[in-house]
């Protein structure tokens, strides 16, 4: 009996230990997790306001770090090596989990930490060649010892921070998912830059377009997806004369045939709203005679924020702006001489090639009438709690064969290979660091030369009074129409034949109109001597911005703030006045009439307390759904035509076959759809009113900022009172929007404002986790404290000294 009781209590004790020490399902290991000395209670802390001294191996001199009232670090080092080591250390202090998670996401390693649910995601990232791309980047970096040293110094700073931690100090997400941080490496920096490359230049519609072309033919394709819209307000002013570009040779169109294959399913694309605004005015157009520059990149709204603000200073440079945790230097910002910003260039830099393999082993593929050998990469995907998954990805000279018999393909012996500038290596890190230290236009022009992908519209202003904008990236010199559709991977004529010479990339410096701007629209008009087609260009934000700068002679800081917060819905203003009179003629109930009158009296501003934007958006979404029912309901992968072209067709081709709704026996026209969509929208608005008690735009849109880990509600912010929408200058949609807003006036030294939807600390337990969110939502800014002297203490809440140590 005694032994039985002993055995039983032993089993019970072990079971209790096991249950409380192990992650069970989504539940963290509760004993470990709730222990006050080891668990999450240890993270219940806001960053210390005490002065501290820290030893950092490998520093050549002490580094001073001053934290201002929003926990923005101002780092003062004696030289760049010390600076980047400190940047790594300081960034890891606040953003360690995020840095690592993003690079895990980039390299297709999420299954390792969250389990089998992420397997399809991981396979997609591997088959996209994300790790391959990072390795190619490293090869380029190896030819540039200086940059490599800085990246390694950064990594060493991160690692010294990681090594200083005990398990109880780990960020809360590690405790929740029960794992530990690993060593930071230069490869992780390359992976982070791939993460950004995919986010900004990882989308295309070639296979969807091919499906459409095969099904409906070229004439229909050109009508729905034109190279240019009937309006165009390009980034580079239309009046630009290109005749000074020497030896521009556009690739001739080959006479060969294109493969036309159906694809049922394509890989996940980056969010179509990933975009940005930037603009700058010349001294003549500025209220003070100093150029003024603004930038707001629109990305997914996440906590911790994608950006981390900091000031990086040495005796030779003084730079302020936002950095990407994991990469050295400032990405968007200013120094004492220049300011710069980025928007996405949205060029077609991904093409697809049909591959014909010799046999089922995928060892050889047809190229130039012979068999060429492939290479293979075995991707090991570790899965938490399961056996490692092995996925063999075949590589051709085009790039990885993303789709094959094992992955969303079309059977044996056929594959589809991806050609992407993201796989070409390149020296983005060099560009970023050189921009940080640029002093004038020439420095800027040289700095951006090595920037390859993701192509960016890099805007510039200097205290010398110059403004400029270069559309920088490595762009294939395509024949007219190349890369819109699937190409023949066996035909050398279908390869990218050459690249547009860097100096021929479209650019403008001090244009006569007195301002430069970009909002992801068409880079050029059709007079540019190289082929550029419409791969989803913006057509609304850019016109609002450019019209604003054409509207008067002088602009001040308030104008800049107003424009970044501008909620004017140009799309609605172009389509609603056309739709309303047509629907007014229909038979409407009194309730429907009331709603129609409400939207009729709307001033087209997507402000939070308006009902007009809600009525319009629900109406339009239904309209688009009814118009493109042929596309939504098809079993092959197809893309919606662009918003602008949808409006254009509704207005100008009301009797087109696409207007017919296939679910009804009648043949509908656009006018019928307006009415059908309206009546449906009224029903939806009633539902919304019942659920939320209001149909005001702020509540209806319900903007939120989701935690990076599957938007865990506990660590996210919901129902933020902010207007705007996709396609509006204030591009804040439900979970997307201005991820950093910056305005810099080029006084000496520059005066700047900035804000982002988050906070400096990645710790959900910190007051600094989300302290900027409300400021951001209300359209306000922080005055950025661009310190000129490290002994200055205005607005500083505490400081750290990083001391050289040999231990």
């Amino acid at each position, binding site marked *: 009996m005694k032994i039985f009781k002993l055995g039983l*209590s032993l089993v019970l004790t072990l079971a209790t230990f096991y249950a409380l*020490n192990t992650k069970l399902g989504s539940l963290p290991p509760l*004993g470990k997790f*709730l222990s006050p000395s080891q668990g999450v209670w240890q993270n219940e802390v806001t960053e210390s306001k005490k002065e501290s001294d820290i030893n950092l191996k490998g520093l050549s001199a002490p580094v001073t770090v001053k934290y201002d009232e929003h926990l923005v670090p101002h780092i003062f080092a004696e030289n760049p090596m010390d600076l980047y080591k400190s940047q790594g250390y300081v960034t890891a202090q606040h953003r360690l989990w995020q840095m690592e998670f993003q690079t895990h996401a980039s390299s297709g390693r999420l299954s390792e930490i969250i389990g089998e649910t992420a397997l399809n995601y991981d396979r997609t990232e591997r088959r996209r060649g994300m790790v391959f791309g990072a390795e190619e980047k490293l090869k380029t970096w190896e030819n540039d010892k200086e940059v490599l040293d800085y990246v390694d110094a950064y990594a060493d700073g991160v690692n010294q921070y990681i090594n200083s931690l005990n398990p109880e100090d780990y960020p809360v997400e590690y405790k929740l998912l029960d794992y530990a941080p690993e060593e930071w490496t230069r490869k992780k920096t390359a992976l982070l830059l791939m993460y950004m490359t995919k986010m900004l230049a990882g989308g295309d519609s070639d296979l969807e377009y091919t499906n459409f072309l095969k099904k409906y033919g070229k004439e229909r394709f050109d009508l729905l997806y034109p190279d240019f819209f009937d309006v165009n307000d390009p980034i580079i002013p239309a009046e630009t004369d290109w005749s000074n570009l020497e030896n521009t040779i556009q690739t001739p169109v080959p006479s060969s045939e294109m493969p036309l294959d159906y694809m049922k399913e394509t890989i996940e694309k980056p969010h179509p709203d990933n975009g940005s605004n930037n603009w700058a005015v010349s001294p003549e157009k500025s209220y003070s005679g100093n150029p003024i520059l603004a930038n707001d990149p629109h990305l997914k709204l996440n906590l911790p924020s994608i950006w981390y603000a900091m000031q990086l200073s040495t005796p030779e440079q003084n730079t302020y702006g936002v950095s990407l945790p994991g990469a050295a230097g400032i990405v968007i910002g200013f120094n004492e001489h220049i300011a710069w910003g980025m928007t996405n260039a949205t060029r077609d830099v991904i093409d697809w090639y049909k591959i014909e393999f010799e046999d089922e082993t995928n060892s050889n593929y047809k190229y130039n009438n012979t068999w060429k050998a492939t290479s293979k990469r075995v991707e090991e995907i570790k899965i938490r709690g399961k056996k490692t998954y092995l996925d063999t990805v075949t590589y051709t000279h085009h790039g990885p064969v993303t789709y094959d018999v094992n992955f969303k393909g079309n059977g044996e012996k056929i594959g589809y290979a991806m050609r992407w500038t993201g796989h070409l290596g390149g020296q983005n890190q060099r560009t970023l660091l050189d921009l940080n230290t640029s002093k004038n236009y020439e420095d800027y022009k040289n700095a951006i030369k090595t920037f390859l992908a993701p192509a960016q519209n890099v805007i510039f202003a200097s205290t010398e009074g110059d403004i400029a904008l270069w559309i920088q990236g490595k762009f294939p010199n395509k024949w007219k129409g190349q890369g819109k559709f699937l190409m023949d991977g066996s035909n050398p004529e279908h390869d990218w034949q050459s690249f547009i010479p860097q100096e021929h990339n479209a650019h403008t410096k001090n244009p006569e109109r007195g301002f430069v701007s970009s909002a992801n629209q068409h880079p050029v008009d059709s007079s540019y001597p190289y082929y550029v087609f419409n791969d989803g260009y913006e057509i609304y934000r850019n016109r609002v911005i450019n019209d604003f700068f054409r509207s008067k002679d002088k602009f001040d800081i308030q104008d800049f703030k107003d424009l970044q917060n501008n909620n004017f819905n140009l799309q609605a203003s172009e389509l609603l006045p056309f739709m309303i009179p047509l629907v007014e003629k229909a038979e409407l109930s009194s309730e429907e009439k009331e709603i129609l009158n409400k939207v009729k009296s709307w001033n087209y501003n997507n402000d939070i307390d308006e009902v007009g934007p809600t009525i319009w958006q629900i109406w339009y979404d239904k309209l688009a759904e009814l118009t493109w029912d042929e596309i939504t309901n098809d079993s092959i992968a197809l893309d919606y035509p662009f918003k602008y072209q949808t409006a254009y067709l509704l207005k100008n081709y009301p009797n087109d076959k696409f207007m017919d709704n296939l679910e009804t026996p009648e043949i509908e026209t656009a006018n019928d759809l307006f009415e059908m969509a309206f009546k449906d929208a009224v029903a939806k608005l009633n539902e919304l009113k019942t659920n939320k008690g209001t149909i005001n735009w702020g509540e209806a849109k319900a903007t939120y900022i989701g935690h990076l880990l599957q938007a865990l509600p506990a660590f996210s912010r919901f129902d933020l009172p902010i207007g705007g929408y996709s396609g509006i200058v204030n591009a804040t949609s439900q979970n997307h929007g201005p991820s950093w807003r910056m305005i810099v006036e080029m006084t000496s030294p520059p005066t700047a404002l900035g804000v982002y939807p988050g906070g400096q600390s990645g710790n*959900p*337990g910190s*007051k600094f986790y989300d302290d900027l969110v409300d400021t951001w939502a209300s359209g306000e800014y922080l005055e950025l404290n661009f310190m000129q002297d490290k002994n200055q203490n205005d607005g500083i809440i505490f400081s750290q000294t990083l001391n050289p140590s040999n231990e």
Partner: protein
Amino acid sequence: MNKNIKNFIFTIILAYVFSLYLPWWSIMLAAFISGFLIPLKKRAIFFIPFIAVAILWIVQSYILSSANDFILAEKIATLLKLKGNSTLLLLATGVVGGLAAGISGIFSKQCSTFFK
């Protein structure tokens, strides 16, 4: 002094000291040693270590959390479906720690009965 009170105090002290050097399960070790050295009877075998560690964990957690306005406690209470209520999270913390210690106390009792 009554053995219950002695065990109670000793468990708290031991659990606290262990927690400075050892992982969370040191509370189980503390309850085990305490139960071995200061034997308890009947329900006290479970409840004395349970209450001792529950109180220790709640007090420790409260001190940490109140210094930071319970910012994280409320979020974790949302995460663990405790309605965002930090008091409930403190109680849950006490129960988890207490349970581990109480069960360890039972095991300790069985060991001492078996080996003595």
